Structure formats: C-alpha cells, structure tokens
C-alpha cells in the first residue's frame, strides 16, 4: 500500500504544478471515458448497424452469389496458412529461425492471440451482430482451413525441389488469389462489390501493384540515363503535388472527356489505378531514401566481385534499402488503406464510408442523427486493421534484424 502511495507521490504529485496537471488530466480523461462508455452502452442506438451489417460489409452484393464470398474467404485462409507454413519451413531450413519457436502449444496459441486479438475481437463482434449461423460456419471453416494450410505448408517447404518445381510452386501460389478473384468477379461485376470488402480489395490490389512501380520509379530517378531520370522525376513530382481527392475526381469525371465512353474502365478499376499511381510516387521517394542510406562501400564490393549493374542493384543494394525504410513504407500502405474511404465520396464507389452515410437516410433511420453510430463503427473497423498492420510491421522489422550491421 505504501508502495502505491510512494509511486503516486513520485510520478503524479511531485510538485504543486504536477498535482494540478494530474487533477485536470484525470478530470478530462474521466469525462471522455464516461462519455464514450455512455455512448457505447447507453445512448448509442446500434440497431442501425445490426440491420445494415450486410451493406456495411459487402454492399449490394447479390445474395444469390454470397456463397462465392464464403468460398473465397475460406480458400484465402487456407492459402495464407499454407504460405506461412512454407515460408517458416524455408527459414528454419536456412537456419534463420529456431524451429522451437513455432512448436504448436499453449505458448504458440497465446502468442497468436496476443498478435491478432483486435481483429479477432472485431470478427467475434461482427458474428454476434449478424446473429445468424452462416457467418459463424464460414469463420469456423476459415480457422480450420488456415490451420490445415499451416500444417501442410512445412511439408511442402521442406521438399528439395528442382528449379522447375520451385517455379511451378510459386506460380500456383500466386495464381490462387487471382483465380479466386475471377471466381467472384465472373458472377458479380466489379462495380457491384461494396462495403468494407471493397475497401479491403481496393487496398490489397493497390498495395500489390504500387510496390513494384514504386521500386522502379525510385531506381529510375537515380538512373544515369537522363531521359529515364527526367520522366520518373516529373511523374513523381506531379503526382505528389496533387491532392489524392483531386486525382480521384479527375479519374471519375474528366477521364470521360478524353477517352471514349466505352473504353472507360469501371469505377473500381479507375480507383485502383489512382491509388496505385499515387502511392507508387510516395513509395518511390521512401525507397529512394532507403537507397541513399546504403553505404557506397556496398556498391564497390559488389562491383569488385564482378556483379553486373542489375545484380548489384537487385541482390545487394535494393534488399538493404528496402529493409532500412520498412516503417515508412508500412505507414504509407496504412495511409493508402484508409484513403480508400475517399473513393466513395469522390467516385461514388459503394465503400464503407459511403454506406455509413447512406444508411442514415433509410426510412427507418432518417432524421435521427445516427451518423455518429455508423461512422464510429466504420472507424473501429479501419482502426482494427490499420493498428494490426502497424504492429505486425514492427514485429517483421525486429525479425529482419534492421540495424544489425
């Protein structure tokens, strides 16, 4: 008891000023906490979320084809588990990690729970709100599929494959998400996707596409060929000089003036193009910073060994450059993920933010000031994913041993 008192004295009430600051801060914090809890548990009218959960998650995706989403989610879980297992087995084989770290057991489950408790909690909340059996079955199957994938992965990862076998394996693994995409999109066109699923999809596509473009732009900006350098620099500076919102509006409205109507791609495709190019320009500058952080001795050693310029770049310099700027890159990707919310307002995509606004206009809920509830709920979903990305990036960074020279 006296320990606590001493602690309070030392940390919160050391001087009269400290005491005043502590009291004021406590009052403000208490008030905010009380208001928040009051909103969540008393005054908040969450009926609107429960009724519109489907719209918020998948938009106006036809009910007849919902099964395809379920199949995709379960398949992606299996794929993710498989990939994690293969990567892990290869790392263990290369002696880069200790095999004991991933022994299945209480500690491993606790570790996973600690890493992913926020998205897991979100899923549980969504399942509870949905209140039907279907989604629960999908969730359970997903977990089972991920575990099975994770168990099969190491078996594949330990195989001694010839070069051709490795190529086939990589191709198959890369093809799975593409096949799943076509499996869904052939039934329901891109522009009928919506809700949080659309946000996730826009972000995933843009992240995958912006990365190689960003790397090439960064290398291009440092190129010794003047034409390449000028083109890359101009592109980067123009894109970085324009607000994302304006670029989205431009892609939505102005594209029609320049390109024949029939050739204008769907809204979501245009959104992906804009997000990709925008983020690629920022990525290029981040990666260029990383390239500059690699000491010139690394180039010299690579040259002295007789490596070609392409190999110098891709085997020696780029891997180090990318590692050195992981936090900035992840920050940019998180930013991209949140920016997908702009697609609704700028281009009319039926993504989460637009759904959150639209449902407050429904007959049952119009004029009741429920925008606070819908926005808060949307924000929580964005936050859960963004925060998890951020934490996983920190873990990733530690494991790569950034700063170990």
């Amino acid at each position, binding site marked *: 008891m006296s320990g606590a008192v001493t602690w309070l004295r030392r940390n919160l009430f050391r001087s009269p000023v400290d005491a005043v600051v502590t009291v004021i801060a406590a009052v403000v914090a208490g008030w905010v906490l009380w208001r928040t809890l009051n909103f969540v548990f008393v005054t908040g009218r969450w009926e609107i979320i429960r009724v519109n959960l489907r719209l918020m998650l998948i938009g106006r995706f036809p009910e007849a084809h919902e099964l395809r989403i379920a199949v995709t989610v379960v398949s992606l879980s299996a794929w993710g588990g498989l990939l994690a297992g293969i990567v892990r087995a290869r790392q263990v084989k*290369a*002696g880069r990690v200790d095999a004991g770290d991933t022994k299945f057991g209480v500690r491993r489950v606790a570790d996973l729970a600690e890493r992913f408790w926020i998205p897991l909690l979100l899923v549980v909340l969504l399942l509870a709100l949905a209140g039907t059996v279907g989604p629960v079955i999908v969730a359970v199957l997903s977990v089972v599929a991920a575990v099975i994938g994770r168990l099969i992965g190491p078996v594949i990862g330990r195989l001694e494959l010839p070069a051709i076998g490795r190529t086939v394996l990589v191709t198959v693994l890369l093809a799975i998400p593409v096949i799943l995409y076509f499996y869904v999109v052939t039934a329901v066109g891109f522009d009928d996707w919506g809700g949080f699923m659309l946000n996730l999809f826009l972000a995933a596509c843009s992240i995958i596409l912006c990365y190689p473009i960003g790397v090439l732009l960064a290398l291009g900006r440092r190129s010794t060929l003047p034409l390449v350098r000028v083109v890359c620099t101009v592109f980067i500076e123009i894109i970085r000089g324009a607000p994302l919102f304006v670029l989205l509006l431009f892609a939505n409205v102005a594209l029609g003036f320049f390109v024949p109507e029939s050739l204008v791609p769907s809204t979501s495709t245009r959104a992906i193009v804009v997000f990709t190019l925008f983020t690629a320009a920022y990525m290029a500058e981040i990666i260029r910073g990383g390239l500059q952080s690699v*000491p010139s*001795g*690394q180039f*010299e*050693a*690579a*040259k*002295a*060994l*007789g*490596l*070609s310029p392409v*190999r110098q770049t891709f*085997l*020696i310099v780029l*891997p*180090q450059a990318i*590692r050195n700027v992981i936090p900035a890159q992840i920050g940019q990707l998180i930013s991209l993920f949140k920016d997908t919310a702009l697609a609704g307002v700028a281009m009319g995509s039926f993504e989460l933010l637009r759904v959150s606004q639209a449902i407050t206009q429904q007959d049952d809920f119009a004029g009741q000031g429920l925008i606070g509830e819908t926005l808060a709920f949307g924000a929580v979903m964005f936050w859960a994913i963004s925060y998890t990305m951020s934490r996983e990036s920190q873990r990733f960074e530690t494991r790569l*041993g950034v700063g*170990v*020279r």
Partner: protein
Amino acid sequence: MSDAMTDGTTDGGGAPDATVFADATQVAGTGDVMIEVESVDKFFDDFQALKDIDVKVGRQEVVVVIGPSGSGKSTLIRCINRLEEHDAGRIVVDGVELSNDVRNIQEIRRETGMVFQQFNLFPHLSVLDNITLAPRNVRKMPKAEAEKLGMELLERVRIPEQAKKYPGQLSGGQQQRVAIARSLAMKPKVMLFDEPTSALDPEMINEVLDTMKDLAREGMTMIVVTHEMGFAREVADRVVFMADGQIVEVGTPEHFFTNPQEDRTKLFLSQILD
C-alpha cells in the same frame, strides 16, 4: 629473412640481384608480367591524385605500397579494377586492357579480388551467402558446388563455424577474413588489398595478416596497400613508396628498410617506425 621471402626470390630465378630498382616497372620473380600500369594520371576535379605512374607487377609477386595518407596509393589500386577511372595512360591486367568497354571491365573484375578497409560485407546475407553470391551469379556455379567451395574457403581462413552467422555477429578480424574468402571464391588471379587492417582493433590485426601471408606463400599475385611495416618486411617481394601521387622509391624490403635513398622515404620511415 623469412621462408616466404626466400621462396619468393629464389623460385623466380630471373630475379634481379640489384636491391635498388631504377623504377617500378622491373618485376621480381619470373619476369612474367601480370599487371601493367603505364603513364597513368588520375584527377579528382583539380586535384591530381596520380601523376604519371608506371608500375608492373609480376605473376606471383607481392608488391606492398606504402606512403603517407593522400599519397594516391589507394587510388592506384582502385584504378586497377575500375572502382576509379584513370584519366590518362594504360592499365593492363593479365593481357586485358582496361577500357570503357564494359566487357573488359567485367573480365578484369572477375580476375581481380579486392579487400577493403571497411570489409564491406553484405549485412543482409549470411557469411556463406556472402561468399557464394558471386560464384553463383557471375560464374554460374551450381549452389551445392558453390557452398562446398565456400566452406573450403572458410576452413582456409579458419572460421568454418561462422558460416551461418551474419556479418554483424562477427568480430572485425573475422569479418575481414570472410571478406578475403569472398574475394577468393571468384578464384582471382590477382588480389588487391586496400589497407585491410587499418580498421581493426590491434589484437585482430595478426589473424588477418596471417591469412594474407598464407596467400602469398601459395603464390597469389598481390598488391597490398598497408601501414604494417612488419608485413612488408616479411612478405613483400618489392616495396613501392608513394608520395603526392608519385612513386618516389622502389626496392626490396631489405634495401627499403635498411638503406633508403630518398629523403622523402627516410622522413616517412622515421615517422612511422618510431
């Protein structure tokens, strides 16, 4: 005089008896020339780093280059594998002239190993991967063969147990030995050493020098820029003294350390040997 020294001069047969060389183009050993540097100038903007340099290095010869800092000794060996481009003159390595032709540059780099003051190991690759990278990518050696070679080289520099570690986990002396092994993996005909022990703690200098002595004994052609006078005395066939971008004096180690001719050399030796 050490065994290595005796071997170096007697094996050669055609070695000149004179202990003073008229200039640096007279090679010890067989007289078979491996590296030829002819009238080379090098400028950094207005500063002339190399002034009309003429040097030849014989096959299996060990040439130690010494001189005060800023004398152009590092620049000279960096010109030989085109880390710096010379502005005038000719450089020929094993019959291939260094020109702007990228193929010639690549060929010379394949035949020439270089060890740096700061090691310059690749921090993102394991020790073994550091060594196998160039043989696999440049010589197109299969992975298994490259790893076997890598382990042999690690045995040779006496640190096979470090193969799976990363450079950051090694001591300076160990890192420099890995760097030597990495260069040797390309089976070079010439090794260039750019102050290989200058960044090391004193207690680690000998382990690196011993590795270099082994190499010299095995008949590697070497140019070594160093401040280690003991090494020069023991291993060098010839010592080249440079100052202000010029070669001031050339001689066998005995001549050089017991009877230097030039005032500049005497001054430098008195400073460094105190």
